[in-house]
């Protein structure tokens, strides 16, 4: 069995890639992808911890179902993320229609 650490490192790496991507890129679509990356990093973490919890609980009591809720969460998150993607992509499409670009640096009208 793989130790949970590996999952943690993977998740952390993905999350950091996501953050760096969000911070450094100007293309809205790439930023969006990075956000998804971060979201999924969290998902991996949830699944990993869930598995860990569950194994520990089963060892004590084979009938236990403890720790499986997190995996349910992941499904919810994926659903919400899908809905979010549609809204987000729609915004990006609208943005492109308005300013003919998906560069977020042009989106600074709130400044004034």
């Amino acid at each position, binding site marked *: 069995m793989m130790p949970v650490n590996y999952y943690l490192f993977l998740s952390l790496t993905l999350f950091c890639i996501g953050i760096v991507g969000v*911070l450094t890129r*100007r293309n809205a679509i790439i930023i969006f992808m990075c956000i998804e990356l971060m979201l999924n990093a969290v998902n991996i973490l949830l699944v990993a911890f869930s598995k860990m919890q569950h194994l520990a609980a089963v060892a004590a009591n084979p009938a236990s179902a403890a720790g499986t809720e997190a995996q349910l969460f992941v499904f919810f998150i994926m659903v919400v993320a899908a809905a979010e993607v549609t809204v987000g992509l729609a915004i990006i499409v609208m943005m492109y229609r308005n300013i003919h670009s998906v560069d977020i*640096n042009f989106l600074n009208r709130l400044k004034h």
Partner: protein
Amino acid sequence: MSKLIYLVPLFPLLGFLLNGLGRKYLSKTVVSVVGSGVILASFIVSLLIFLEVKEPGFTPQIISLFDFIHVAKLNIAFAFQVDQLSSLFLLIITGVGFLIHLYSSAYMKDETEPHFARYFAYLNLFVFSMLLLVLGANYVIMFIGWEGVGLCSYLLIGYWFKNDEYNKAAKKAFVMNRIGDLGFLLGIFWMISQFGSTDFSTVFAGAAETPVKILTGITLLLFIGAMGKSAQIPLYTWLPDAMAGPTPVSALIHAATMVTAGIYMVARSNIMYTLSPVTQTIVAITGLATALFAATIALKQNDIKKVLAYSTVSQLGYMFLALGVGAYTGAVFHVMTHAFFKALLFLGAGSVIHAMHHEQDIRNMGGLKKYLPITHITFLLGCLAIAGIPPLSGFFSKDEILTASFLKSPAYYILGVLGALMTAFYMFRLYAMTFLGKFRGTHDQEHHLHESPAAITIPLIVLAILSVAGGWIGIPDVLMKGGHRLEHFLAPVFAASTALKTEAHELSHTMEYLMMFGVAAIILVVIGLAWNRFSRYEKTSAQETGIGKVLENKWYVDELYDAVISKPLLWLSAFLKNFDKIFIDGIVNGAGKLVQYSSRQLRLVQSGQVGSYILIMVTATILLFIIQFFWKS
């Protein structure tokens, strides 16, 4: 009769209201009749009251009209006090005042009607204030009159308000008086906290049990008030400038009213002064210093009214010397005789100025003897009286003061005599340059020279008679049996002070004769000198040099005050104005600006760059983690 005392100030007040409100509608005749008539009416009432007071066994009466201020334990009534001192002053004020009013009706006839009425209204108000001052039965009522005369002098000195110099003189008079008034006020406050009252009766009764220290404080503060009102060093400079007003006004200010207020007040509070020897010494020294100082200035003045003005300051110094050495009667006596001859001299000067078409420089006069016979004779009598030639009034009053100061200290006496000599000298310099020799004015002026009308000469004659005979009520015992009648009359007022008098030793008769006539003889010599020198005066273009120049410029005291007080005050004010604008307002506005500035800086954070928002978010999150992580202790 003394129940009717309120009539005395009421008449002038009515005159003021009538003339003041009807200034556009009343003719000059009506105005002068009303203006002078009310004073005459007051004089008659005063005379009746005086006759009642003169009776032996008269006790001072306090007539309370209404409660002026009645707060908590402090009760100040609007009350009048009738006694020997106030009745005597009433006579001087209304009597001399009436003559001055009469004189004014002719002197001011060139004014247009509203201004003529305004003039008489002010004059009446002046007399009203002065009457309040001497009638008040407590210090607050006295203070009302005290400030009132200050106000009226301001209004009258600045009567010709188109002239800025006159306005300045008026302002100066008021401000100088106010400085003194502040001292007076503080004295009253001290009295209130010490005695709980300002009534003369309460205060004087309590004075004996009061610590000398407190009495000294109170009397010194009151004396500051007297310095301002009676033009003593250092607050005397307003009086010579006060001659900017019409000449009769100068006569009123210098003779009958205003400047005598300080003497009256000290004489009224005599018991407190007698009980505080320190103050007495200060009063005497101030008086003597003023007498000498002003006399030196008078020696070199060329304006007829200025000479008289400085002589007033000097004579007032004598009165304070008398008060300082405890000769209260002498001071009051000199107030009276001085009122006569100084009014005479000023009105005579007015007559000269009138004849000379507003020329006041005595260097341009001379030889007026033959053109103005009545003015000349009366003026000469006035000069003799002020110089102290027996048996004119000034001789007796001055002699009484000098004798009293000799008893206190021979130094006072010698300096006093020195001042008297100077007085004789400058008065006869003035007389000789004005009336003797040959005429030095323009032909035009010579052509118009004429004696003044009766309304001017009659007051002169009456005052001349008084100047000659006025002193006879105070002839000393050595010269006449049953003398010192004034002293006996005023004795009840000064009884408490007399009782405290320690030095009982009297002068021998020979000594007294020697002093009296010896001094008179020297004065005569001085008069001869002045007469001889100035009756042959020729106009020269030579400027005064050395000490003469200093005296002509009045010891540069005005310049000194300007440099030491006025300029620094203005400088301080300008500094404070800028300080307020830059510093205080700067702090206030700075607080506002700080908020604006910091908001503007904070706004920059909202750059609109989504990336930077996220960066801040991430950093903040990391920071939170770090804090969370290390938040153990």
